[in-house]
């Protein structure tokens, strides 16, 4: 049982070790206990006791004892030239799944979806997936080459690209292996690990068609090879027709240059397509008339079917949704109102509706779609719920504008088995127990 949390009520009361603020402790240790500080201490004790006994006990010391931050001079501007989150948000960080990979350079760090709001992922929390480590590239020395079936093979500097007409568009980015750990059984405890290879960002860069037209690409070509400048020289075959619709050679992410972990200074943005195709540290685009069967589309990122066949060149991320809170590893503080919140997206277009079930998929009700619904972008959904201590099975289900409906896990497994690794877009189930604890389960 967590310190300071009553198991019966699920109510948080101030933990004994935290009823004194660190600053007050430090103040007392430096200057001793004078009358003013003594009163502050008494107030803190009163609050702790009131919480512990569950009784209304006096006034809130955080109000009657005006907090120290209201009684002191704040810090100067530019104390942090690049701003940082509050130190009280230290739990909101990327995390690895222990034992998932044997090397940290070919690995994953997952986004803490459980603690995030809206549909933009802070760039510093964007999940990481590298195949041979990440690199710091000097943008002055970086080049983009365009070759293959073109009239004129070209070289661009980053300055060239920054000078060209740009677009800024919101798109989700999901690794094809997101939720891969859940094909066989419930394997990981929180939404960070089940769905945390997912992000939503505003990407800025040069529309791909502009560059390909500049090179005079062969209109009969149907493939594009994208290649990275990292050690792995990551290469992926891109569907040229699809990319001509909306792909971007991007340098910007959420208003600033790409983060190094996201491909600084250039990455390919291929909306709706799995993350591995959004080649980072992009150095070359080759226009071709045949697919390339690169390592990550021949040995990995191929989906094994029950008959032993491997689906090759699987790219599109089909519609998917997940409740991010309440979610696995969390505990409902007390009975009463909760806003069930989550994310929905589709690699084929826009989210049309999201439905939520609190009884394991037997009955469904519509959720509110918040903010602007954009094509191939995360959509935040909210659903009002009153919890009175009953066991519950929370699920969400998205439909997109093609009419596609997110499937239950059993239906997906019936077709694809449990060993295909990639493209698991099944409905996720979170179990709420009468104690308020939420865990990751699968229903049959």
């Amino acid at each position, binding site marked *: 049982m*967590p310190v300071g949390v009553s198991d019966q009520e699920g109510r948080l009361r101030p933990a*004994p*070790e*935290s*009823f004194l603020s660190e600053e007050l*402790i430090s103040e*007392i*240790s430096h200057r001793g206990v004078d009358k003013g500080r003594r009163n502050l*201490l008494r107030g803190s*004790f009163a609050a702790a006791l009131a919480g*512990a006994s569950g009784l209304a006990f006096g006034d809130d010391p955080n109000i009657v004892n005006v907090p120290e931050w209201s009684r002191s001079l704040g810090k100067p501007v530019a104390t942090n030239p690049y701003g940082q989150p509050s130190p009280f*948000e230290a*739990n909101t960080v990327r995390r690895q799944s222990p*034992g998932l990979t*044997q*090397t940290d350079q070919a690995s994953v760090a997952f986004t*803490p979806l*459980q603690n995030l709001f809206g549909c933009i992922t802070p760039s510093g929390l964007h999940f990481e997936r590298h195949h041979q480590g990440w690199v710091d590239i000097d943008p002055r020395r970086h080049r983009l*080459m365009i070759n293959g079936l073109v009239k*004129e093979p070209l*070289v661009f500097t980053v300055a060239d690209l920054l*000078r060209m*007409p740009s677009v800024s568009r919101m798109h989700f980015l999901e690794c094809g292996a997101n939720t891969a750990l859940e094909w066989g059984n419930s*394997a990981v405890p*929180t939404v960070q690990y089940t769905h945390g290879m997912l992000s939503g960002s505003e990407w800025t860069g040069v529309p791909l068609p502009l560059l390909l037209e500049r090179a005079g690409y062969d209109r009969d070509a149907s493939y594009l090879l994208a290649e990275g400048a990292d*050690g*792995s*020289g990551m290469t992926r075959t891109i569907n040229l*027709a699809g990319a001509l619709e909306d792909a971007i050679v991007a340098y910007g992410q959420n208003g600033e240059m790409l983060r190094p972990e996201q491909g600084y200074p250039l990455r390919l943005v291929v909306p709706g397509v799995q993350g591995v195709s959004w080649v980072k540290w992009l*150095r070359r685009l*080759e226009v*071709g008339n*045949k697919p*390339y*069967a*690169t390592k990550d589309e*021949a040995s990995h990122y191929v989906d*094994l*079917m*029950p008959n*032993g*066949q491997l689906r090759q060149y699987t790219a*599109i991320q*089909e519609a998917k949704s997940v409740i991010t809170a309440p979610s696995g*590893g*969390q505990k409902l*503080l007390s009975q009463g109102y909760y806003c069930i919140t989550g994310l929905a997206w589709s690699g*084929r277009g826009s989210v049309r509706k999201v*439905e939520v079930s609190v*009884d394991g*998929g037997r*009955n*469904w009700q519509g959720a509110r779609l918040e903010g602007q619904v954009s094509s191939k972008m995360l959509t935040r959904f909210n659903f009002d719920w009153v919890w009175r201590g009953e066991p519950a099975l929370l699920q969400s289900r998205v*439909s997109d504008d093609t009419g596609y*409906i997110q*499937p239950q896990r059993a239906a997906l497994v019936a077709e*694809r088995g449990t060993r295909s690794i990639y493209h698991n877009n099944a409905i996720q189930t979170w179990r709420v127990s009468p104690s308020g604890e939420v865990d990751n*389960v699968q*229903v*049959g």
Partner: protein
Amino acid sequence: MFRWARLWLICLSILGHSALANNYSSALNELGRTATAAELSAWDIDVRPDFVGLPSGSGSVEEGEALWLDQCANCHGDFGDSNEVFSPIVLGNITEDDIQTGRVAALTDPSVVRTTFMKVATLSTIWDYINRAMPWNAPKSLAVDEVYSLVAYLLNLAYIVDEDFVLSDKNMKDVQALMPNRNGMTEDHGLWSVTGVPDVVGSACITNCSVNTAITSFLPDYAMNAHGNLKDQMRDYGPLPGVQTAPAPQVSVSMQQSGSLDQRPDDLLSASGCKACHQMNKALVGPAFTAIRARYAGADASVYLADKIKQGGQGVWGSMPMPAMAQLDDTVVAALALWLASGQ
């Protein structure tokens, strides 16, 4: 005046005939430049399944083995079968029949570990990847003939070629015809194109849907902490705090019986909230732990101190009251009292 009028007319004509856009695009074409032949050859290194892009050269199984043991075996094992760092490349799961049919039968067997050569249909993939990305810590450092020799060695480990084989750009096509899973890929699915047809679509049912809500899988208790303490992974002041999955500080029976502790129970002091008011060596809100331990050293004070912790008190060390720590488990209180009473 004439010049201004003429400019004005030109502007009008540009706007009227959309020539403005053309001017922009011709100016845009000044950005970027033609790639040179040397630049193309330095970067255009990909090798396609039909071997377009494959440089000429050759290498033997024997040469490959020596190079492998020197530069590759550390991660992949002497025979490419290690799973310590990466998935195995070969593991003896390929049969003669597979090489005949071009379909690896063991891929349908969940008990068989999937290796590179069981999956990969195209020899070009192996060549291209070693050439561009290996060795792990020094990618693109291998000479062309070295890449051929390493591919030859792996083909031999996978029982595709004999140990006296020499692989070259001339016989890659012949070896491709022996790749064990060369017919094992399918592009018959809906995930290549945005307009592809989905293989599975969910139900639109709204009420009283016929679904099985029996729980078929959940994380066992012992696995709940495998990803670290979930309490520390959630926002800790909101309506949905994290579940404490790390084991609570343990109190050993022997410690309680012996009445002494070899080391300071720092975790217990923190988790129990003592450190909010007490420090080890100096008085804060309450007395220092060392001061308490000194005062009660030698006295059989553990029961008295346990009572003080549980009930709280005032006046022994000053006017500042100690709150009752009634929420603490009795075994924790006993352990703390024993440590305090054990003196030094």
